[in-house]
């Protein structure tokens, strides 16, 4: 396919008097990582919501595989392959890890007990939850629930993963492992991953395109070392 997998053009969105996004552009290719950074309230989650269909922009368009999906509701966008991990934990806490993953697997159109179990097991292996398959998800330690959510996105065959703060609450080791996992998903499955993060070391280890948001506007784009040189970024974000 020619052109980017996900193409975001001139998105704007306001909430009352707050301008949460102004003329935001973003282009995401298959098999790539895009990091979005910015201080609290910069509009990162708002951007994710407009990509996932949870929020409809005031103006601008979102194209996925060349189709204009700007007004598609979240469930339709997710079944087309654009799936979001929310900033706060969102999984099925009362169910076991496999039961969680099976609900994702069904969304990928896989039917029949055996096929569902087999695929759920594959996904559990990828996100290192193979030893915890029958554990109630709500009793997993926090870091592992983040991986369970990534597993849910994998199970439903996401092609674009929108990860809002995937390492929040993780230990340093878990954070490093998460970077490795994301690299593997992108490399082996040609997945496109958009990551929102505050942890600069983590973003650096992703070695990706970085977009810096501030007050709803893109103030810098480039590699992490590029944006770290950017004067405005240093001012508003890195606090220098």
């Amino acid at each position, binding site marked *: 396919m020619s052109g980017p997998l996900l193409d975001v053009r001139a998105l704007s969105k306001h909430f009352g008097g707050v301008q949460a996004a102004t003329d935001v552009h973003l282009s995401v290719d298959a098999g790539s990582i895009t990091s979005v950074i910015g201080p609290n309230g910069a509009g990162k989650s708002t951007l994710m919501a407009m990509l*996932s269909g*949870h929020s409809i922009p005031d103006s601008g368009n979102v194209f996925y595989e060349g189709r204009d999906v700007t007004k598609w509701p*979240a*469930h*339709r966008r*997710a*079944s087309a392959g654009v*799936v*979001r991990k*929310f900033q706060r934990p*969102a*999984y*099925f*806490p*009362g*169910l*076991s890890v496999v*039961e969680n993953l*099976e*609900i*994702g697997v*069904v*969304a990928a159109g896989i*039917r029949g*007990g055996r096929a*569902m179990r087999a695929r759920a097991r*594959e996904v559990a*292996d*990828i996100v*290192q939850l193979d*030893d*915890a*398959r*029958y*554990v*109630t998800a709500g*009793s997993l*330690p926090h*870091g*592992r629930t983040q991986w369970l959510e990534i597993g*849910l*996105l994998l199970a*439903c065959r996401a092609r674009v993963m929108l990860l809002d703060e995937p390492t929040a609450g993780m*230990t340093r*080791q*878990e954070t*490093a*492992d998460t970077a*490795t*996992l994301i690299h*593997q998903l992108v490399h*082996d499955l040609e997945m496109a991953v958009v990551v929102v993060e505050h942890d600069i070391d983590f973003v650096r280890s992703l070695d990706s395109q970085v977009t810096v948001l501030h007050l709803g506007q893109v103030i810098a784009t480039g590699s992490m070392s590029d944006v770290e040189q950017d004067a405005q970024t240093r001012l508003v974000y890195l606090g220098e």
Partner: protein
Amino acid sequence: MSFKVEVSHETASRKVVRARRPRRGNTEDLLATVLFAVLFAVPSVGDSYQVFILPQYMLFGVLAMSLCLVWGLGGILSFGQGAFFLIGAYALGILSTRVSGSLGVWLGIAVGIALSAAVAGALAYFLFRARVRGSYFVLVTLAISTIGGVIATSASDLTGGFNGMFISRVQLTVSGWGVDLASDSTSYYFVLALTIGVYVMLRWLSRSAFGRVLVGIRENEERAEALGYDVALRKTLAFSLSAAIAAMAGAIYGTEAGFVSPSLADVVFSTSIVLWVAIGGRDFFLGGLVGALAISLVSEKLNSAIPEYWQLLLGVLFLAVVIGFRRGIVGSAILAIDRVGDRR
């Protein structure tokens, strides 16, 4: 998937709580088999009154299972099941007297089911699309019951109004073959078969892809939607199916009891259904079924012996379940048996 991510983990966070696959579901089916076997034996050992009254209670059980479908699996509490039960009973009563022969009977059952499913479906779709949920939806279902009762009372030409309507025992026949519900023992086995059929169908549904997703919606609606499920549509389907089951039970109840009145849609009866399911255990169809059967049987005895105290006792039981015993009596028993099984 060919790769394995090479990462290390802190051992503390990788504590394995349970290594084996739990055998969920078998306990419920096993206990249900015992219950059905006992019910099957009742006509040969019990007295004629039991053979007369138990089918009505089994139909209450089917009604309760219809609530388990939406409340237990889908997390959608409904006080409207009584209204759908009522629609089923009136539809059979009205059409079987106005259209002669077996056509009238089948038409009555079909119209009751179709009307309930359509009303439930249309209303639910509208509300779920508008993201009405939780206690707001509960209030709407209470209104469904109230409106159902009001219509049944005011359309007295059709329904007999406040005084209710008598329905004779019908024959369910297809080209000469079928069952004559006029005989108590025939109708007993017929209703038992229907109850088993609904139980088996619902158990199958709960294990199907549809059932799993419904549970997902109950656990986290936003997550289910963001995985690609049209949750409003799925909740609507569940609610509509549950109304259809309630209406079918209501139709057979009408002819079994021989009488139907608007009280089937009043707050007392609607609350009773919720009570059966809450006390039995909403997470299991067997919980609803046993709750309806047991409470109806005990109610009948105690209502005449200690009328005031019995209502109070039921109220206290309900409170106890709501506060500290969310899984209900049957639900807790099933989980306790499973836990013992897992440990071995």
